[in-house]
C-alpha cells in the first residue's frame, strides 16, 4: 500500500500527507485548523500573522463560467485581523493536540531586522514546525511595504530571508508572488538568503469583473473596488508553469510547496510531478469545505497504487525532464486527427473549429464525396448553414414518417454529419480533440514522416542561419 506521508520536507517538516491548507481564511483560527486536521489535512499554514489589520466588507468575488461557480476567485482580504498573541496561543494548543500534522506559521511584519527576529522567535516558541515568509500578498499590505512589495524586489527578499535565517531554528519557506516578470529572480534571491524551501504561487493581481448595472467592479466596497488576488482553478496552468520554471533552475530550485488552483488529487499529482514536495489548497476548501481532502488522499493513493509508486518521492519531479524549450522539440514529429465514427454524435464543432480556428481540414463531405486539398476546393461553412435554413422540413406526424426521420445508418449519427479529416492538410494542432464533447472520439494519431528527429536548434545551426555581420 502506498505511503503518502511526507518526511523531512525542507529539512525537518513531517506531515501525514502532502495536502496542506494554504495560509488563508480556512486557517484563520485554531478551531478551524483542528476541524481541518480532523477531516484529514496533513498540514496547515496559519493565516498570516503580523500586526492585526482592519479588513473591508466585501472581500471576495468570483469568475463563473458556463454555469460553473468559481472558475476563478479573487480576494482583497489582508492578513490576520487577530492579535499575534491570540494566534500563537492557539497555535501552541493545536500543535500540542496534533503532533503529527504540520503547522506552519505564515509571517509578515514590517521590514526591520528586530521585528522579524522577534516574530520568528515567538512563532517557534509556539511550536511551529516551520515558517512561511509571506512575500506575496498583492493588495493592501504591499502599499505598506510588505507582502509583494518585498517579493517583487529580489534584494529585499534576500535580505529579509537572511534576517529570518539568523534567528530561525525551523525550516524557512519563502512564499513567492507571481506578479513579477520572472519568478525565478526572487526564488534565486530566497535561495541565496538561505531559505530552506519555497511556496508558489501566491495570488495573481486581478479585477474579476464589473457589475454592468452599477458599473462598479467586484468586489464592491461602498461603490469602489480595488485589485485583488486571483486564485482557484483558473490559475492552475499559470502556477504549474512557474513551478516548472523554479524547479528546472538550479539556482532557484528548493523543496517546493505547490500552490495554485489545486482542488483534487489529480491537480496535486501534477504539481508533485513537476517537483513539489507538498501542495497547498485554499479556494477549493472555501468552495466545498475541508471534506474534499478525503478524495484527494484516496485518489492519490489509488493512482500511486495503479502506477506502482510506493512513496511521494517515487514520482516527484518525473515530468520535469519532459518540459523543455521549444527549440528542442522534434519538428519532424507529426500527428493527425482521427474521428471515431461510432462515437461521433454529429455536433460538428470540430468542423467549425477547424475552419474558423485552425487549418480548414475537417470536412462534411462523407456523403457528397471526399475532396482533399486546399480551402478553395471546399464550400465554406456558412454555405451549408444557408442551405439548411432554406431547406423544407415537415413534422413527421405519421408513424412511418417518424421512423424515416429517426432512421439509423451504419453509425449512430447520420453519415452526412460525421466529419472527415483531410490528413494531408491536418497539422496535428489538437484543436478538434479539445472541442469534441465526446471522450475518445477524436484521437491524435502519430504518422510516420520517415524523417529523423530534428529540432529547430539543429536546423538553424547550419551556416545559412549563422548571423552575418552587417557590412
Amino acid at each position, binding site marked *: 500500500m502506498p505511503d503518502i506521508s511526507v518526511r523531512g520536507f525542507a529539512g525537518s517538516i513531517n506531515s501525514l500527507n502532502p495536502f496542506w491548507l494554504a495560509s488563508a481564511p480556512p486557517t484563520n483560527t485554531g478551531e478551524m485548523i483542528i476541524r481541518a486536521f480532523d477531516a484529514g489535512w496533513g498540514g496547515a499554514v496559519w493565516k498570516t500573522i503580523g500586526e492585526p489589520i482592519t479588513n473591508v466588507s466585501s472581500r471576495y468575488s468570483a469568475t463563473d463560467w458556463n454555469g460553473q461557480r468559481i472558475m476563478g476567485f479573487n480576494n482583497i482580504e489582508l492578513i490576520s485581523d487577530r492579535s499575534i498573541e491570540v494566534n500563537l496561543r492557539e497555535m501552541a494548543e493545536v500543535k500540542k493536540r496534533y503532533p503529527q500534522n504540520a503547522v506552519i506559521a505564515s509571517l509578515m511584519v514590517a521590514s526591520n531586522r528586530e521585528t522579524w527576529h522577534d516574530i520568528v522567535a515567538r512563532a517557534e516558541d509556539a511550536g511551529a514546525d516551520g515558517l512561511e515568509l509571506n512575500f506575496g500578498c498583492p493588495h493592501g499590505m504591499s502599499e505598506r511595504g510588505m507582502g509583494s512589495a518585498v517579493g517583487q524586489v529580489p534584494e529585499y527578499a534576500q535580505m529579509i530571508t537572511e534576517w529570518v535565517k539568523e534567528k530561525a531554528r525551523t525550516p524557512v519557506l519563502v512564499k513567492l508572488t507571481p506578479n513579477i516578470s520572472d519568478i525565478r529572480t526572487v526564488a534565486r534571491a530566497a535561495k541565496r538568503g538561505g531559505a530552506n524551501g519555497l511556496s508558489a504561487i501566491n495570488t495573481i493581481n486581478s479585477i474579476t469583473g464589473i457589475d454592468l448595472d452599477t458599473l462598479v467592479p467586484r468586489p464592491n466596497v461602498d461603490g469602489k473596488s480595488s485589485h485583488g488576488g486571483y486564485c482557484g482553478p483558473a490559475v492552475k496552468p499559470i502556477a504549474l508553469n512557474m513551478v516548472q520554471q523554479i524547479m528546472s533552475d538550479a539556482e532557484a530550485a528548493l523543496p517546493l510547496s505547490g500552490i495554485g488552483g489545486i482542488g483534487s488529487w489529480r491537480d496535486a499529482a501534477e504539481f508533485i510531478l513537476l517537483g513539489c514536495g507538498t501542495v497547498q489548497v485554499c479556494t477549493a476548501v472555501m468552495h466545498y469545505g475541508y471534506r474534499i481532502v478525503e478524495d484527494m488522499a484516496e485518489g492519490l493513493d489509488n493512482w500511486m497504487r495503479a502506477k506502482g509508486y510506493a512513496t511521494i518521492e517515487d514520482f516527484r519531479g518525473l515530468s520535469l525532464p519532459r518540459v523543455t524549450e521549444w527549440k528542442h522539440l522534434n519538428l519532424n514529429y507529426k500527428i493527425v486527427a482521427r474521428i471515431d465514427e461510432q462515437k461521433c454524435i454529429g455536433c460538428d464543432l470540430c468542423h467549425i473549429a477547424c475552419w474558423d480556428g485552425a487549418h480548414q481540414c475537417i470536412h462534411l463531405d462523407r456523403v457528397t464525396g471526399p475532396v482533399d486539398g486546399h480551402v478553395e476546393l471546399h464550400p465554406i461553412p456558412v454555405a451549408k448553414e444557408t442551405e*439548411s435554413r432554406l431547406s423544407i422540413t415537415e*413534422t413527421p406526424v405519421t*408513424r412511418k414518417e417518424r421512423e424515416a426521420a429517426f432512421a439509423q445508418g451504419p453509425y449512430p449519427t447520420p453519415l452526412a454529419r460525421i466529419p472527415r479529416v483531410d490528413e494531408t492538410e491536418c497539422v496535428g494542432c489538437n484543436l478538434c480533440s479539445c472541442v469534441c464533447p465526446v471522450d475518445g472520439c477524436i484521437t491524435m494519431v502519430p504518422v510516420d514522416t520517415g524523417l529523423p528527429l530534428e529540432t529547430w536548434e539543429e536546423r538553424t545551426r547550419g551556416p545559412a542561419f549563422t548571423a552575418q555581420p552587417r557590412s
Partner: protein
Amino acid sequence: MSTATLPDNPQLRERFRELKPPLTAQAAVIEADRCLNCYDAPCMGSCPTHIDVPGFIKRIASGNLRGSALRILDANILGSSCARVCPVDVLCEGACVLHRQNRKPIQIALLQRHSMDAFHASGERLPIAPPASRKLRVACIGGGPASLACAAELCREGAEATIFERRPLPGGLNTYGVAEYKLRATDSLREVEMIRQLGVDFCFGESIESATALESLESEFDYIFLGLGLGAMQRLGVPGEDAKGVMNALELISAYKTGHIREMRGTIVVVGAGNTAIDAANAARRLGAETVYLLYRRGEHDMSAFDFEYEHAKQEGVQFFWRRQPVAIRTSEHGRLLLDTVQVQQVDHKLLPIPDSEFTIDCDVVVPAIGQSPLELAIQELCGIAVRDGRIIADLATGQTGNPRYYAGGDCVNGGREVVDAVAGGKRAALAMLKTAEVAHA
C-alpha cells in the same frame, strides 16, 4: 383596438394547470449552458421554421434575453405557442445530438418559452418596416397559425395584410383547439395581439365562401392567401350520431376553453386515437368525468397519437378499448347514451367484426375524434385551384397555387400537421409574395 379576449376563468386555470411549468431564470441559464452550440445544428434543421436554436439558447446563457426572443420571432412569429404545443420529441429535442451520448436532450421548448415569456412581459414591440412602405396588399383567409404567420411576415416587411376569420376570436386551433394545459387560449390571444401590433388587420365573422365575396377580395387585394385549415370533424357514420350528448372532440375542446363547458360528469367515451382524441379524453378527466374510455378500432401500436401523448393519457386515468368500434348510438329511457360496440379484427386490409363480441357502453357523452374531414371545396370551382384528396395543391417552396394570385399554407395544404408547419407554410408564402411583388414593381 386590441383583439378580443376571453374573460378570466379561475376554475379552468386550476383544472388545466400547465403540464410543463416555466423554468426559473437561473434554471434557464443552467440549461442553456448545457447546449453544445452545434454547427449547423440538427435541432434547427429539424424545425420546420428553422429557428436558430443554439443562437437563441446561447443568448439566454449570456443574458441577452431580448436578442434571444427576436432570434426566435425572426424565424417563427408564433414562437410563444410553438414552445408550448410543438411535439418536440419528434422535432428539435428529438434531433438533439446529446441523445447519442445517452444524455438528456436540451429542453429547447422550455428555453424558447423562457425567452418568449420574457419578451411578452417586457411589453416590447417587434421592430417593423414602415407600414405600407411596399405596394402590396394581401388578404389572408382564416385566422389560424398559417394566416397569422403569413400576415405577420408581410407587415414586418412593410406590406399590408388583412385576416378574415369567421369565428369571433383569432388564432384558429391555437385559440380553440389546443389542450388548455399546453397552451392557454389567453396566451394564444396575447400572441395574436402582438401580431396585430405589427399592423395586421382583422375582420371577424367574415366567411369568404361565395364567388362574390372572393371577387370583391380580388379587386381589393393583390394576392389572396388561403389558410383555411381542415374541414369539420368527421362523422362516425353510425345510427344515432345526432343524439343529444354526442359532441365531437373539437367542439368539446373549444367549448371548455371558451368557458361554455365548465364540468363533465359520469362516463365519457372518446372514439379515435389521434392527438386530438387524447386531448379530448384528458380534458374530460380534468373537467370531472369519473370514467373516460378511449375506443379505437386498431391496436395501441397503430394509434397516430404521439407516444408521449399516449403516456400522458394513461397518467390522466384514461382507459382504453383496443380493436373495438362503435356500431350505433342509442338513447336510454333515462336519457343516457348507449354506445353499441363490436370487437374487430384485421383480415387482409379490412377490419371485420368478430361475431358475438358486441357490448354496449352506458355513458353520458360520446366524443367522435376520428380526424377532420377534407375541406369543403367550393373554393376550387370558384377560383380554379387544384385540390387533391382534400388538399390544396400548392408549390411546397412558395405556397403558390395553380391560380397565381392565390397562395396557400397550413393544414389545407399539408393535410393536417402541426402549428409549426402552418407557420412555416405561411412564412414561405409571404416571402414568395414579397419577392414576386418586388419583381413586378421593379
